[in-house]
C-alpha cells in the first residue's frame, strides 16, 4: 500500500518540502493530490533524514499546506512505449491531447535513460541530404549527429526545422524513418505550424509529438525532452527506426532549470543559470547517436533562441560545447530576405569530415567546402574594408571576392522553402561560383578535381 503524507511544511516556487517521511528515494516520483482532487506530479530533488524536497512539474498554484496529500510512487517518471505512439500527440508530461485512445504500453521505461557506453557507440558517418545547400554543402549533417539551430526571436527556425524534417533522407536507401518532436514553452502558433506541416506532408503518420506550450506549466519542460528522447530510443534501438528528434525551444527548457535552481537558493552561475547546466544539458544532447549492432539511429536538431542574438549567452554557449556543431541563423541575412538565413562562417558541423567525400557525397566535396569557406570569408573581409575605405581601396581581386560573397549568399545560401537540392546540384553551384576567381587562387582544391569539375562547370 502506498503511504499518504499530509505533512507538507513549506511551499516555495515550484518546490514543496514534505516532512516525517520514511523510505523515500532520491529521484522518485510523487503524486500530490490537492483539496480539489486535482493530481499533480513531482520529483524528489533532495532528502535529508525524514524531509523530502519535491519539485512539482505543474507548479504549486492553488496548493495548500494542510489539505494536500502526497504519495510517493517508488519509481522515477516513466514513459509507456509501443509502436502506437507513432502518429500521436501528447502533452509535456506524456498524456494524450489529440483525443485519441490511451496507449497500451508494451513496457514502461524510466525517462532519464542511462549514459551510452562510449565503447558501444558507432561513429556517425552517413550523410543526410537535407536539400538545403548551406547545410549539405558547407555544414553537412550526418546520421546520429546532434546539430542545433542557434536562432533568434523572429527568425525562421521553425520553417528550417520543418523543411529538414520534410526533406531529410539518406541517399540510396529506403529505411524506416520517424520524427519525434518536443515543444517546450513555444507558442501555440509555432507548435501549430509544425503540426500543420507534418499533416500536410503526411509525416504525422510517423511522428510523435510532445507539446508543452508557453502557457503550460514551466517546470513540466524539464520532463518533456526526456520523454521525447525515451520514445526516440525505443523507436531507434528497439524498433530499428532512424529517428530525427526536434527539440524546441531549449532556451525555455534552460529557463525552467534556472527557476528550480533559484527556488532551491543554489549559488547561481553565469546569468543566474545553475552551475550544473552543462551536465544537465548533456544528459539530453548525448542521447543522440548510433549504437553498434543496432540498425536505428537518433539524430537531434535542438533549436534555441539566443537571447539578444548573443552566441556567448550561457544557453547557446553550453549547448555548443556539447553538440557536434551548430547552424547559426543571421538577422542581417534575414533582413535582406535571404531564406534560409544561415550564417555559414560561424556555423559548423564537426562530423562532416567523415560524412563527405567519395562514396558518400562526392570526392570533391571536402575541398570545395574549404575553398568556398575561404573565398566567402575573404569576400566578406573585403566588403568590410570597402565600408571603411570605400570601394576604390579594393584591389581588382578583392572586388571579385566581394562580388563572390554576395553571389554566394544570394544563390548558394538562399533557396526556396520547398526547394530540395541534391548534393550534386549544391556542389555544382559551388563550382559555378568558384569560376569567378582565378584558378591559381583555388589553393584548397586538389588539381585533379579542378581539372575534372571546374571545366565541366565552365562549359
Amino acid at each position: 500500500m502506498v503511504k499518504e503524507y499530509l505533512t507538507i511544511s513549506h511551499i516555495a516556487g515550484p518546490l514543496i518540502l514534505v516532512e516525517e517521511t520514511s523510505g523515500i528515494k532520491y529521484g522518485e516520483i510523487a503524486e500530490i493530490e490537492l483539496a480539489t482532487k486535482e493530481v499533480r506530479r513531482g520529483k524528489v530533488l533532495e532528502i535529508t533524514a525524514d524531509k523530502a524536497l519535491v519539485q512539482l512539474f505543474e507548479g504549486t498554484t492553488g496548493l495548500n499546506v494542510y489539505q494536500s496529500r502526497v504519495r510517493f510512487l517508488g519509481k522515477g517518471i516513466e514513459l509507456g512505449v509501443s509502436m502506437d505512439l507513432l502518429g500521436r500527440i501528447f502533452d509535456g508530461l506524456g498524456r494524450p491531447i489529440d483525443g485519441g485512445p490511451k496507449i497500451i504500453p508494451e513496457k514502461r521505461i524510466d525517462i532519464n535513460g542511462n549514459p551510452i557506453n562510449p565503447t558501444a557507440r558507432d561513429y556517425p558517418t552517413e550523410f543526410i541530404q537535407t536539400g538545403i545547400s548551406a547545410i549539405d554543402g558547407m555544414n553537412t549533417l550526418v546520421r546520429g549527429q546532434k546539430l542545433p539551430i542557434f536562432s533568434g526571436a523572429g527568425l525562421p527556425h521553425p520553417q528550417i526545422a520543418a523543411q529538414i524534417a520534410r526533406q531529410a533522407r539518406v541517399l540510396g536507401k529506403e529505411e524506416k524513418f520517424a520524427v519525434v518532436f518536443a515543444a517546450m514553452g513555444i507558442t501555440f502558433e509555432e507548435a501549430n505550424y509544425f503540426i500543420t506541416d507534418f499533416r500536410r506532408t503526411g509525416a504525422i503518420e510517423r511522428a510523435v509529438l510532445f507539446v508543452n506550450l508557453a502557457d503550460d506549466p514551466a517546470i513540466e519542460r524539464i520532463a518533456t525532452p526526456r520523454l521525447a528522447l525515451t520514445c526516440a530510443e525505443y523507436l531507434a534501438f528497439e524498433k530499428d527506426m532512424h529517428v530525427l528528434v526536434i527539440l524546441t525551444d531549449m532556451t525555455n527548457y534552460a529557463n525552467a532549470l534556472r527557476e528550480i535552481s533559484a527556488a532551491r537558493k543554489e549559488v547561481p552561475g553565469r546569468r543566474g543559470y545553475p552551475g550544473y547546466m552543462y551536465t544537465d544539458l548533456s544528459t539530453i544532447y548525448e542521447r543522440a547517436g548510433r549504437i553498434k549492432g543496432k540498425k536505428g539511429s537518433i539524430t537531434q536538431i535542438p533549436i534555441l533562441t539566443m537571447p539578444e542574438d548573443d552566441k556567448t549567452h550561457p544557453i547557446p554557449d553550453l549547448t555548443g560545447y556539447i553538440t557536434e556543431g551548430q547552424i547559426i541563423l543571421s538577422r542581417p541575412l534575414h533582413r535582406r530576405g535571404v531564406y534560409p538565413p544561415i550564417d555559414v562562417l560561424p556555423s559548423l558541423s564537426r562530423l562532416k569530415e567523415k560524412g563527405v567525400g567519395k562514396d558518400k557525397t562526392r570526392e570533391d566535396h571536402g575541398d570545395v567546402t574549404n575553398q568556398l569557406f575561404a573565398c566567402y570569408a575573404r569576400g566578406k573581409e573585403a566588403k568590410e574594408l570597402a565600408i571603411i575605405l570605400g570601394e576604390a581601396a579594393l584591389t581588382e581581386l578583392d572586388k571579385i571576392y566581394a562580388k563572390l560573397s554576395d553571389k554566394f549568399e544570394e544563390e548558394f545560401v538562399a533557396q526556396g522553402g520547398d526547394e530540395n537540392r541534391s548534393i550534386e546540384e549544391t556542389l555544382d553551384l559551388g563550382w559555378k561560383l568558384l569560376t569567378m576567381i582565378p584558378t591559381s587562387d583555388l589553393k584548397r582544391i586538389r588539381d585533379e578535381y579542378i581539372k575534372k569539375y571546374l571545366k565541366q562547370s565552365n562549359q
Partner: protein
Amino acid sequence: MERVTTSPTKARIIKVSGPLVVAEGMVKAKMYDMVRVGRMGLIGEIIEIKEDRASIQVYEETSGLGPGEPVETTLAPLSVELGPGLMSGIYDGIQRPLDIIRDKTGSYITRGITLPAVNRKKKWDFIPLVKEGDEVRTGDILGTVQETPLVIHKVLVPSGIEGEIRVIKKGRFTVTQTIAKVRTSSPPAPRLRRAGGIKEIRMLQKWPVRRERMVQKKLPPEIPLVTGQRVIDTFFPVAKGGTACIPGPFGSGKTVILHAIAAWADAQIIVYIGCGERGNEMTDVLLEFPKLKDPKTGRPLIERTIMIANTSNMPVAAREASIYTGITIAEYYRDMGYNVAVMADSTSRWAEALREISGRLEEMPGEEGYPAYLGTRVAEFYERAGRVVCQGTKNREGTLTVMGAVSPPGGDLSDPVVQATLRTVKVFWALEDRLAYMRHFPAINWLNSYSLYLDNVEAYLGKEIANDWMKLRNIAMAILQEEDSLQEIVRLVGKEALSPREQLVVETAKSIREDYLMQDAFHEIDVYAPLAKQYRMLKVILELHHSSEHALEKGVFLEKLLTLKIKEKIDRMKYIEEKNIREFDSIEKEIKREIEGLTK
C-alpha cells in the same frame, strides 16, 4: 580522547542530494576513503567529515538511494590498479573497464558494477632482469613483459620495498601470481614483520590516485615533444616533461589538436583523458587509433594508448576523479623510464564537477561559484608533470608531459579556470574563434600564444635539426608581428600607403600563415609534419622573402616578385611526403633561378 566505536554496519545514509550523500555513524571513516553506498553498493569517496558524519561523493547515479540505507567503508583510499594489461584499454573515471562493462551489461552503463581494471586471467611472459641474491630497492626493474608489440612493461619493485632478491621467477604468470620474493633488509615496517621480512611481489600493484608517485628528483625539461603540428613545434613548443594548456571557445579546435598530438607526438605512451566531453569523440579515438600507424614502427597507435572516458553525461563525481586516475597511470609508465604524454579534454568540465560538489557541500563559493581551492587543485594537477629521475638504482629518466584543454564560457579568458591554469602552465596555445570561422586551422593565434620552453629546447633543435632553427623561427615571428602593425595601417588608409618592402612583408606573412601555420588535421599527409620537413618549409618561405628583398633593392618591381611561378609550388609544399623531402632542394633552386632571371 577515547572514542566509542560502533560497529560499521551502523553507518547509514541520512541525506541524498544528487551526487552527494551524507552518512552518519561513520566512526572509522578517514578522509578520501572509498565507500560502498546503499544496497546497490555504489562506489563513493569521503570528501568531508564532521564528527561521525561523512559527506560522500558518489561516482554513480544516485537516484533510488534513500535515507536509512547502509554505507560501508573500505578503509582504503580511491586507488588505481597498475600492471600489464592497461595498454589499449578504455576506462571510466574510476578505472572501470568500459569494454568489459559493455560485454556484461550491454550498450548502456548501468550501476553497481565492480570489475577489476586489470585482467586477472591473462598470463604474461615475464622475463626477469635480476637474479637471486641481487640487492634491489623501490623502482628497480625486476623484469619485463611485452605488454603490446609497442610497449615493454617494466615490472618495478613497489614503493617501500628494499632488500635482497630471494626468489625470482621466469615464465607465464597472471598479474596476481608471485613473480619475486624480497627479503627486506632495512628494519622491516611493522606490518611486514609477520611475514618474516619476506615480501612477495606480484605484477599487480595499487596506488592511491590523489597521491603523486615518488621520484628521486625533478630536472628541467630540455627536449621538445615533437607533435608534428607546425605552429606548435616551430613557434610554441612544449618540452617533454612540460605543461601546456589550450583554451578556446567551442568549435575552435581543442579536441582536434589534442587528438592529433595523441596520435602523432613522439611520446612512447599516451594517456588520453576524455573528461566530461562528447561520447562520439572517444568513439572516434577508439575507431581511428587502431588504424593509424606509428611512423617509426608501423604498429597501430592504439598499442601505446590508454583512454579514460568519462563523458559529459556520465556521473559527475567520477569526472572529478578521472584526471587523477589518468595521471596516476601516466606516472606509473613514466616510472618505467618512458616519455609519457597526458591530455585532458576538458579541464573546465573537471573544474565544474569540483564546483558542483563544493556547492552541494555548501562551501563558501569563490569566483564564479568555484571553490576557493580551485587554483591549488589545478596547480597540483599540473605539478605532477615533469622530467624526472625515477626511483631505483639505475637513475632512469622519464618524462610526463601534461596538456589540458580549457573551455571558458563564451571563450572569455578571464574565466577562473583559465586564469588558474595560466598561472601554472608554461605553454599557452591561444585558440581564436575568428580564425576558426575563416577555417584557419589550427586556430592558434600566433601573436597571443607563448611557450616558456623556447630556451630549453633551443640547444636540442640546433643540434638535431639545424643550427639556425631558432633564428629562422624568430625571423618568421618578427615578420608576423610586423604584418600585424602593417595590417592596422592598411585598415586605416589602404594598401597603397605601404612601401614595396612593407608590401613584401605582408605577402610573406600571408605565406607563413597559409602555407605554414595552417595545417589540415584531416589531410592524410598534412596531418603530421616531421621536424625536418618543418625546417625545410620555413626555410623556403624565408629564402624567397630574403631574395625578394634583395631583388627589390636592385630595382625589381614588386608586382614581378608577387607573381613568381614558384609560388604555386610553395602553396602545395605541405603535401610533400617526408620521403620526397629532396623536392625542397629543387624548390630552393627554382627560387634562385627565377629571381636571378629578374635581377639580370
